[in-house]
């Protein structure tokens, strides 16, 4: 949550302030043709509803977060939540919803208050961290739509989910926090006793008192170690059983041996009891692990959130004419599905009724919309642009294009092999070295004197080398780095993403939707008559076709014209005095004699009585900072490639404007996957950036992959990193943070090794006392953490 509070100054009756021209409800700029203080009818109705409930304090208290979706009421109806409701035994029902567009605590307050005013609601609680709404009401599941609509009406999108399935991660986090608490309690209390021993013995304190202190310490420490050490012991056991070692093996051995030896020393009334070192070690390590888990859990739930909202629900038309919203995964062949304008096709099939045009860019990278009519085959993932369609589902599940892409992705995941985290690679060499040193110490001392002294010194070596600094070095850097990226809207989904990102030498981009915005824009490089543009924009105001939208963006101030007819795949027309105004394709406007210059751009023509025909050309505009990002990547010495499914002419235009010589057009998803494999065989470490269905296998095959949050859900699932901005800058940010955190991790490991090089000879010489061990351990841990925190502060 941001600290800065942007207070919107709202008068009791919304006055029209054209200078600010921001919607009173959602804060979006008000388009030219909208009347009043609102950007759309939904916002006006939301504002009225909030005032009617007496909750207008919301507008004073909220602070809009620019990264979040604006609280504009969604146009599409809510999904059917009946499959997710849980009925209680006492006639009550509960439901869990993911909420999209939560900005701050005021949003939480508004939603809870709106729901609390419904007489059926027993409790409604929004969790701002996990963005979930837990609803509980008296009555059956038939009330759910009413409650969901109330939330949607004030501007939030919701998706139901199964709460029982999602419980695992947070339970684990809680168990870890409990272990941290127990270890912290033990550390504080054992340290209290140990400090008094260090201060008082040998001196006023007699051996009997010291033994009492040791026994009390053992009483606190041993149960705490048995409880709080479990996360390490379990992981070490699993790893050893598979004949591998990881970081937890040396930790577990060190902890167990030190505890056992301290107990033995206490029993024979010796002075070498290391209880405080052991519990402190556990406390520091658990703290690092808890922070790591928490940061990752937050990122994972954010990523899950994005994927859920990217999933397509389908509108099923039943035999009796009724409609039902359902997940597209539960469609069957032979089902009839309605696809409204602006919706994605939920499954592969055939159009039965309606003419429209489809945006195929997410399926094959092609930017030009394709016209479809009855009998046309359509693939899941295409976007319906101009008119409602009815389609028959022909294939679902295994045989769809989507399923084929998913199969390729799974194959790619297997080919990637098991990546070993850096800390585990270090542990693999570190653990045997330490254990050999301890053995050497034991043998050396055993030859010289009694075996008890030899054991004592060998265990001292293990304690002093216990990889506290190593165990903290990697997780703390990871936490700081992932938080830093999270604040910039970059979600690291994989634990080893940073390490892999740091070694990237080749960057492969998809074109449509990645380098470009994935939507046509009016070209600005040739003259257009302002009157023509205004007329065309007015005609196009009500159309969802991407070219119409582009005209609106080019001239948003034009007043929308009424009585415009839309003919799918051809164009728009409006009757005027003296004939007809037409906006659309060359054929639709009857242009036959105009020059055909063979350009690759999409075009629209405008004809009107008494005017010369006007011509609009569109192109898929680059992301605003694409050129700067590509130039910077080149300076960093990365090889840059473009792999696109679009036509060669379009790809060449983009590649040349970015000065990229290595481009390939018309590449299918399988070919992209093979190209990535070929690069990997050649030793290249590839970062793949893509958003389309056809990029899925390539994303999975690359060493590391990124996807914008506008990508289809399978891509977001496959990508290691998801970024949320309209710019490409996150690619640079992520590379930069990865490089610097890689450096910090190496520094930390180097420091830990240096510390050991100094401390181990002391331990081998038998000079380490419990006081020295505790001081060395806490100092090295604090140094490593302080060094890691530099990453969060820099710039």
């Amino acid at each position, binding site marked *: *949550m941001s600290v800065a509070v942007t207070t919107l100054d709202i008068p009791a009756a919304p006055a029209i302030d054209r200078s600010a021209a921001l919607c009173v409800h959602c804060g979006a700029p008000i388009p030219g043709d909208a009347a009043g203080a609102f950007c759309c009818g939904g916002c006006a109705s939301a504002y009225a509803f909030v005032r009617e409930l007496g909750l207008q304090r919301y507008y004073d*208290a909220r602070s809009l977060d620019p990264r979040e979706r604006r609280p504009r009421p969604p146009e599409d109806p809510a999904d059917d939540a009946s499959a997710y409701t849980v009925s*209680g*035994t*006492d006639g*009550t029902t*509960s439901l869990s919803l993911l909420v999209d567009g939560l900005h*701050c*605590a*005021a949003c*939480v*307050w508004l939603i*809870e*208050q709106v*729901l*609390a*005013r419904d*007489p059926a*609601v*027993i*409790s*409604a*609680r*929004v*969790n*701002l*961290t*996990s963005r979930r709404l*837990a*609803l*509980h009401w008296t009555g059956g599941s038939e009330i759910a739509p009413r409650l969901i609509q109330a939330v949607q009406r004030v501007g939030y999108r919701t998706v139901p989910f199964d709460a029982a399935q999602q419980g695992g991660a*947070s339970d684990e986090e*809680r168990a870890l*926090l*409990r272990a941290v*608490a*127990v270890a912290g*309690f033990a550390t*504080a*209390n054992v340290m*209290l*006793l140990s400090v008094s021993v260090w201060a008082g013995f040998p001196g006023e*304190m*007699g051996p009997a*008192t010291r033994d*009492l202190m040791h026994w*009390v310490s053992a009483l*606190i420490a041993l149960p705490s170690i048995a409880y709080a050490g479990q996360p390490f012991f379990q992981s070490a056991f699993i790893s050893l059983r598979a004949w591998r070692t990881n970081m937890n093996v040396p930790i577990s051995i060190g902890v167990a041996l030190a505890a056992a030896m301290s107990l033995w020393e206490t029993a024979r009334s010796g002075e070498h009891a290391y209880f405080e070192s052991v519990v402190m070690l556990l406390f520091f390590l658990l703290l690092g692990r808890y922070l790591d888990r928490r940061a990752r859990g937050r990122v994972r739930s954010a990523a899950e959130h994005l994927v859920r909202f990217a999933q397509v629900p389908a509108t099923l038309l039943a035999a009796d004419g009724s409609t039902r919203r359902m997940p597209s995964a539960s469609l069957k062949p032979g089902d009839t599905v309605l696809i409204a304008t602006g919706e994605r096709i939920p499954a592969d099939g055939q159009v039965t009724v309606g003419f429209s045009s489809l945006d195929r860019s997410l399926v094959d990278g092609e930017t030009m919309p394709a016209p479809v009519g009855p009998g046309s085959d359509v693939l899941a993932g295409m976007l319906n642009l101009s008119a409602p369609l009815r389609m028959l589902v022909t294939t679902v599940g295994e045989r769809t294009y989507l399923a084929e892409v998913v199969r390729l992705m799974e194959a790619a995941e297997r080919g990637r092999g098991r990546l070993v985290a850096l800390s585990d690679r270090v542990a693999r060499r570190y653990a045997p070295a330490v254990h050999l040193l301890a053995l050497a110490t034991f043998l050396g001392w055993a030859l010289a004197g009694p075996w008890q002294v030899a054991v004592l010194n060998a265990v001292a070596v293990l304690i002093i080398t216990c990889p506290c600094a190593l165990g903290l070095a990697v997780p703390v850097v990871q936490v700081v780095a992932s938080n830093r990226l999270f604040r910039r809207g970059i979600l690291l989904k994989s634990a080893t993403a940073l390490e892999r990102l740091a070694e990237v030498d080749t960057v492969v981009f998809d074109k449509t939707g990645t380098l470009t915005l994935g939507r046509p824009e009016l070209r600005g490089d040739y003259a257009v008559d302002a009157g023509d543009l205004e007329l065309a924009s007015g005609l196009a105001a009500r159309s969802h076709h991407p070219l119409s939208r582009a005209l609106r963006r080019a001239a948003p101030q034009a007043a929308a014209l009424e009585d415009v007819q839309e003919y799918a795949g051809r164009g728009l027309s409006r009757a005027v005095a003296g004939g007809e105004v037409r906006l659309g394709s060359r054929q639709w406007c009857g242009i036959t004699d105009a020059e055909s210059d063979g350009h690759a751009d999409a075009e629209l023509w405008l004809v009107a009585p008494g005017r010369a025909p006007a011509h609009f050309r569109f192109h898929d505009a680059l992301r605003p900072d694409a050129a700067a990002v590509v130039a910077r990547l080149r300076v960093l010495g990365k090889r840059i490639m473009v792999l696109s499914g679009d036509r060669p002419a379009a790809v060449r235009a983009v590649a040349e404007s970015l000065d990229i010589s290595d481009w390939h057009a018309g590449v299918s998803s399988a070919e992209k996957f093979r190209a990535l494999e070929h690069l990997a065989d050649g030793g290249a470490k590839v970062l793949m950036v893509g958003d389309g269905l056809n990029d899925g296998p390539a994303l999975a095959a690359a060493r590391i992959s990124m996807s914008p949050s506008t990508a289809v859900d399978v891509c977001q699932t496959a990508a290691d990193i998801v970024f949320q901005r309209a710019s490409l800058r996150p690619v640079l940010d992520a590379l930069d943070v990865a490089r610097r955190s890689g450096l910090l991790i190496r520094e930390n490991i180097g420091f830990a090794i240096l510390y050991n090089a100094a401390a181990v000879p002391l331990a081998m010489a038998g000079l380490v006392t419990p006081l020295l061990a505790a001081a060395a351990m806490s100092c090295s841990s604090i140094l490593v953490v302080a060094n890691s925190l530099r990453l969060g502060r820099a710039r």
Partner: protein
Amino acid sequence: MSGLLFLIPIALAMGLAGLLVFLWALRSGQYDDLDGAAGRVLFDDPPAGPVGPVNPSQQTRSTPS
């Protein structure tokens, strides 16, 4: 030194009490939404529901204002 015989148990009991309070707070869900809890205090309306996971046995009816 005989003071230790009751000072140590007192110190331990106090530490243990703190630990138990923390574990109780954790169990009752007070650490589930740290971001939301920080902002909730700014709104003085009656709470819309009990703190903690939705569990029908713990529900109390909220007062519509």
